[in-house]
């Protein structure tokens, strides 16, 4: 059975997302779902996002689009036209899942809300990912990566204590909503297939999803119990000492000492290297609460030690001593990392415009399962396959829809 080469059966997923949800549909696509990316006739706006492979701005060479749309098929459709709406309804009748991140109320305003779509397909699972959720006083507020990081409080604790809140790079807000939505969709599919036979609606708030991504800072709990706001302490922890990124001979090394046993092992190593007896002082031993008051002197002793080694030396020798030292890397290091290679992280794919590239594909190493390896679709690449081959439109109808700008 072909489908068992991957984790999921070819569930049909209609992808009407922007950056808030595009990773959700990708995750399902990489693990076997038949995801159809529904694009505007002019192309999804993310096709114009730089950087572009080879530095040539082109609808087919956005690194962002290429990465987030692997294993998807592409059709174009203007759902703001009457015939466009009709086609989306027909597609939804064939779908297991519809995932969208349009402004709250937008699809409903077009007559394409969940209540309306379920009439023709009661088995449909529909998930909406929105900045603040589908209910509550902020539901209509506009957002972006920066705004989401601010609203969730994620930024409040990122940055130096004497500086402003800092946006974590890499557009981190694009992941949490997608991931929570993917979990909920899988739960809803299980419920449908194993128990109820029916689909349901899923409302995911990006603000809430992001709050879960820094749970261990417990901002609301700190206010409730202490009347204090957690705030920025810099990259290095002030509660767990030492923990963070520190200078070394050739750049940076990250290290974290969490258990009492780890401290003893580190202190012994620092002493071996520096001969500084102070580090063995009894008052620094024990849990983090014992070291936190001495953060300045401990950090100084640590840097005196770490700057005598390269990152590679600290990484491996630290681990030999059962201590967590990890290199600070950039994306070029990731591509050459032997561990990522051993975990089958990479899939090489040939894209007609972007050429042959190594993609990090899938997030699990599953015995006997290989993630699908089809590069991102060209704009409207599957119009004929899907509209004519699957929905049964004639070539003539397709031509007319094109001429009228619906497709």
């Amino acid at each position, binding site marked *: 059975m072909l489908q068992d080469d991957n984790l999921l059966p070819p569930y049909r997923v209609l992808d009407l997302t922007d950056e808030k949800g595009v990773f959700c549909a990708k995750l399902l696509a990489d693990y076997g779902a038949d995801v159809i990316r529904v694009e505007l006739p002019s192309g999804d706006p993310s096709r114009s996002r730089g950087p572009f492979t080879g530095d040539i701005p082109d609808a087919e060479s956005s690194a962002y689009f290429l990465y987030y749309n692997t294993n998807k098929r592409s059709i174009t459709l203007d759902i703001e036209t009457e015939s466009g709406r009709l086609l989306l309804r027909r597609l939804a009748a064939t779908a297991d899942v519809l995932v969208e991140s349009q402004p709250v109320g937008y699809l409903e305003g077009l007559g394409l809300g969940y209540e309306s779509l379920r009439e023709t397909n009661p088995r449909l699972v529909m998930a909406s990912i929105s900045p603040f959720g589908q209910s509550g006083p902020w539901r209509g507020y506009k957002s972006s990566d*920066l705004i989401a990081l601010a609203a969730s409080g994620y930024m409040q604790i990122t940055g130096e204590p004497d500086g402003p809140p800092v946006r974590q790079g890499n557009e981190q807000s694009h992941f949490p909503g997608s991931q929570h939505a993917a979990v909920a969709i899988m739960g809803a599919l299980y419920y449908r297939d194993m128990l109820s036979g029916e689909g349901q609606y899923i409302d995911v708030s990006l603000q809430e999803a992001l709050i879960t991504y820094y749970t261990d800072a417990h901002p*609301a709990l700190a206010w409730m119990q202490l009347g204090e706001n957690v705030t920025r302490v810099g990259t290095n922890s002030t509660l767990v000492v030492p923990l963070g*990124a520190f200078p070394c001979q050739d750049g940076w090394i990250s290290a974290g000492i969490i258990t009492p046993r780890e401290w003893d092992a580190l202190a012994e190593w620092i002493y071996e290297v520096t001969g500084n007896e102070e580090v063995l002082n009894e008052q620094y031993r024990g849990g983090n609460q014992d070291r936190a008051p001495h953060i300045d002197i401990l950090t100084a002793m640590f840097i005196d030690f770490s700057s005598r080694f390269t990152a590679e030396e600290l990484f491996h020798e630290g681990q030999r001593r059962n201590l967590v030292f*990890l290199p600070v890397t950039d994306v070029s290091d990731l591509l050459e990392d032997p561990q990522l290679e051993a*975990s089958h992280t990479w899939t090489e794919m040939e894209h007609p415009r972007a050429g042959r590239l190594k993609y990090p594909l899938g997030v699990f190493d599953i015995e006997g399962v290989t993630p699908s390896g089809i590069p991102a679709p060209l704009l409207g690449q599957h119009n004929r396959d899907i509209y004519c081959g699957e929905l049964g439109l004639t070539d003539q109808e397709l031509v007319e829809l094109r001429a009228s700008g619906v497709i």
Partner: protein
Amino acid sequence: MVADGRKALAGVRVVELGPYVALPLTGRLLASLGAEVIKVETNKVLDEMAFIPAWSRGAGQPDYQRGKKRITLDVRTPEGRDLLLDLIRVSDVFMTNFRRNILDRWGVDFPTINDVRPDVVIMWQTGLGGNGPYYTYKSYGILVQHMSGVSLMSGDEGEPPVAINTSYSDYHTGIFQPVAVIGALLRRQRTGRGAIMESSIFRSGAVTAGPAILDYQTDGRLPTRRGNQDASAAPHGVYRCLGEDRYCAIAVFTDAEWDAFCDALGNPEWTQDTKFTTAMGRLDNQDLLDGQVGKWTAQFTAEQVMERLQAAGVAASIVSQGNDLFSSEHLKARGFYRETPYYLAERGIPATQWERGDGIAWNSPARLSESPMEFGAYSNIGEDNRYVFGEVLGLPDTEIQRLAEAGVIY
């Protein structure tokens, strides 16, 4: 048919063995979806997370452990190991984050588990990878953001790496894993086969760098670190407002948004400056623009700035602090934070003797209309021993008592 109070994963039993953030979070999500998640712990070696936050050790645990059946079982003892295997025999999923050498030492390696339950779904969460050169290496999620390329994409050029001071990459893994677990359960239904699935915190973080990884391969370019500024939007950043440590974030992408922004400010003269009237001009003069915007925001509270700009259709938000989140009318209307008991961790005495506290925990960010993700009850460590050992495994009370006294169920 609506089974068992509309639980999506009704009838699924999961055994969870392991501490920290990612694995427990996976278990919590599966429990919220209605699976029976049995959390195996021991009073002898406590999860370091039981001591977080420092001001009220254990108040953070309901976020990670709620909805689970929590038992004490020392799997390092021969009888404890056998009881773990007995539990797996009657379960659908086994999840752990212990390293291979440790699982081998305890005799709960995967071949043994597969002998006990051939169609079990195994979710093995690792730090850097379960096989390969670093498989014995330890890691912490808070540091993996450095190793997965993210911290060198944050902050400004030339500055030290910038990280968020939490277990960052753990959350990626923890919320990825239920997708694989449920997928494997559905596959088992089709094929009769279980699964051995490995995740790694490292890989979970690294895949988020996808676009930068593709771009680097074609032109050798690393992402530019821009702090709070953006390549395609200006103004774009956080701006000081009235009050201590108060900021409002503002993001203006299009010309239409810029016009709306200027209107919201009452079109002061500086907004007509030709340096700012085109998108290109605004991007070229971001520092100057930020200075002007900051002068305006400094006259108002962050809430006032946010409300005025949002009313005009401009993306803006206060940089939320703990009190904003705790008191948020919006989050209240969504029922996001809920009250919960917790237990104040103390080394050396069994958890059942810990003092109780009252705190809050978050409700799931995903709301399902037909099979809601439940907030669920919060059990203390060992609270469900009687149910699990008595009802699930059918041990008589006297045997449970004997095992407790022998330090196996402890």
